[in-house]
């Protein structure tokens, strides 16, 4: 056992003392913080160049209303701040009558398109004569908006809102209905997302708190992503480290002092240490960050121990597979080929996590979270979504994962024993399976 620990300590130091580890530890918060900061900065850094838009209104009743709405928009949202602070934060929409020399719809469209191409105007909209009273044909109610920048939809959305509001009003007026009455009649009803109420110490019924959708969503996601990161950063380098020992003939020297199984167990213990170091740094960091921002009550303290158990299992499970691959192959290229299917298994929970978060108690979520390679990530995800899951499911998951981990470590140990001393061509999957079964 002493020797296993000697190996583990070396493995741990070799992993943790590298620049790559420190960088990867820092990378995630920097990336996340950075992307939030960039988004915050970019919010006010939009293009504020005014947009000249030509409008051809064949109804004759909408043009003035659109101009009026654009002027009102200038007053309300285009400029922000007061006095000297006042500055333009959005582009103005400069509405103008389309100047055309024809009555033919196709000809008009062409002329206006040319104007867009010549940068005389930014875009143009054509309202057919029947937009307000289209009868039964929805196509006649359609407004044609043409531009050379199809991805810029801000104006299109604004115009749609303005036209709809005014056509509705005009249609109500046509049948003598007061628009205010209609507004009253179609006022929307809100459905609030609330938690459960309970009794406080004095026996009074507490007030239901409005649930925090973001917290309910982000915490489980964060837990799962952390699990994923830890497996990736701690377990996958094991393959390279085993490959180095094999290629540099270090394994031969080591095997003069310890058995192959001891060597592998030592290395696995080492990376479990690495993963616990990582998880501690992140969990403490996350706790501090959440606490400081006043969301302390959302930190899932009750899940930390479950997280550690699942994480250790995941690292052992995937670590043993990576170690076996490292021992079986003879160069990085062969290793990458064998890595791909394993990585797909590691990533698989990422494809289903959204469904699992929305319905953590559904049968499919339960079944998926009980498939051992996915259990560590999906089970912690389900546990983190209120109100949690029945304890028997968690325990069953742990039992299955432990059983699978034992099988994996055992099989990997056999592959490791044969592969680590084999030089020349690496093994293929079939050979690896044969070694694992026959020993």
């Amino acid at each position, binding site marked *: 056992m*002493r*020797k296993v620990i*000697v*190996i583990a300590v*070396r493995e741990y130091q*070799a992993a943790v003392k*590298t620049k790559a580890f420190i960088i990867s530890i820092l990378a995630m918060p920097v990336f996340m913080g950075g992307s939030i900061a960039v988004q915050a900065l970019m919010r006010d850094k939009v293009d504020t160049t005014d947009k000249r838009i030509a409008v051809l209104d064949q109804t004759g009743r909408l043009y003035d209303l659109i101009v009026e709405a654009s002027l009102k928009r200038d007053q309300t949202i285009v400029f922000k701040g007061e006095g000297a602070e006042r500055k333009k934060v959005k582009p103005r929409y400069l509405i103008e009558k389309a100047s055309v020399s024809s009555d033919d719809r196709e000809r008009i469209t062409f002329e206006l398109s040319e104007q867009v191409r010549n940068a005389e105007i930014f875009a143009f909209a054509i309202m057919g004569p029947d937009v307000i009273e289209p009868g039964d044909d929805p196509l006649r109610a359609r407004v044609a908006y043409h531009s050379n920048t199809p991805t810029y939809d801000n104006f299109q959305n604004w115009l749609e809102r303005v036209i709809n509001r005014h056509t509705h009003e005009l249609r109500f007026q046509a049948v003598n209905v007061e628009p205010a009455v209609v507004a009253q009649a179609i006022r929307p009803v809100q459905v609030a997302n609330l938690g459960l109420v309970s009794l406080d110490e004095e026996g009074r019924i507490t007030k239901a708190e409005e649930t925090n959708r973001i917290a309910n969503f982000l915490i489980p996601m964060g837990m799962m992503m952390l699990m994923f990161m830890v497996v990736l950063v701690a377990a996958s380098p094991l393959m390279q480290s085993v490959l*180095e*020992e094999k290629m*540099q*003939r*270090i394994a*031969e*020297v*080591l*095997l*003069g*002092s*310890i*058995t*192959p199984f*001891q060597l592998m167990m030592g290395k696995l213990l080492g990376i479990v240490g690495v993963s616990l170091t990582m998880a501690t740094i992140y969990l403490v960091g996350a706790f501090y960050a959440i606490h400081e921002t006043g969301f302390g009550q959302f930190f899932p303290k009750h899940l930390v121990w479950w997280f550690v158990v699942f994480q250790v299992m995941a690292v052992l499970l995937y670590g043993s597979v990576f170690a076996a691959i490292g021992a079986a192959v003879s160069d990085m290229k062969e290793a990458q080929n064998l890595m791909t299917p394993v990585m797909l298994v590691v990533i698989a929970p990422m494809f289903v996590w959204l469904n699992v978060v929305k319905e953590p108690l559904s049968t499919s979520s339960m079944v998926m979270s009980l498939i051992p390679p996915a259990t560590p990530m999906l089970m912690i995800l389900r546990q983190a979504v209120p109100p949690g899951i029945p304890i028997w499911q968690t325990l069953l998951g742990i039992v299955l994962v432990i059983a699978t981990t034992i099988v994996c470590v055992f099989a990997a140990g056999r592959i490791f024993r044969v592969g680590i*001393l084999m030089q020349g061509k690496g093994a293929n999957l079939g050979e690896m399976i044969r070694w694992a079964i026959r020993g």
Partner: protein
Amino acid sequence: MNNTTNVVEIQSISKTFRKHVAVDDLSLSVPKGSIYGFIGPNGSGKTTTLRMIMRIYHPDSGGGHIRVLGKESFQAANDRIGYLPEERGLYKKMKVRDILRFYAELKGRRDFKETVGNWLQRMNLSDCANNKVETLSKGMAQKVQFIAAVIAEPELVILDEPFTGLDPVNADVLREAVLDLRRRGSTVIFSTHDMSVAEKMCDFIFMIFKGRKVLDGTLESIQHKYGEDTVRVSVEGNGYSPHTISGVERVTDFGHVQELRIAPGTDTQDLLGALMRQGNVMHFELAHPSLHDIFVRIAGPEADKDAAGLETLTAEEPADA
């Protein structure tokens, strides 16, 4: 010979990789406290045999057995054995001092601080104790590896080509260290391609060729088997062409000196007369064949013609160490 004095006892073992027979029905015994040299061409089975002694490889199942340090149990891991593999064997990113500490700990040593320092000083490596292995030259890395093999003062040291790639100064340092190990009571087995090293250092020489033992014994006993069939000469003169002289079977030219192998029954006085007729004889010495010559006779191109080269030439009673 009494079994208890043998550190390694191998009885007719074989090792087959897929269809390739690497080691074929091999037996040998290494007496305690001796320096035992393995020679043989590349790919002849030296490393495989050493690995079997290390219990890294298991021999094919069959009648044979390997007994190392009196034990027959087949499990790798023995703190009483030190091993230096052929080239490499070090973590590139580790510091020299750390890696030596690691290997010492792995062998169960706890009081290694002073030992590591002493060895580094002895091998002229004190200045690079805190350098990473990847910054070392090949010779320096070789010395570090050697220290790693002997740091735990093993009873048996197995060195796979320890002198390859060393300059003469470093080779001397290492040779001195190996002799020192023996003085302290360790048994040393090493493989080498350098015949002069084997001749000068080894108490016993063991040659393996195509997986089979072809030589085993002291240098004298091996040379004795071949008899005094070699003449070492140095002749000056334009007409000098020794291979034209009758009775000369083979000429090995070392430049200033030639080794002539003579047919059995050739009169050496006649040979000397013939040489004197060809030029000015500066040196004429009747000798046993050198180990180099014996090696070439067994494994060289002419060995194919000479089937007798594969015959096992074991000294029946090797002289006691």
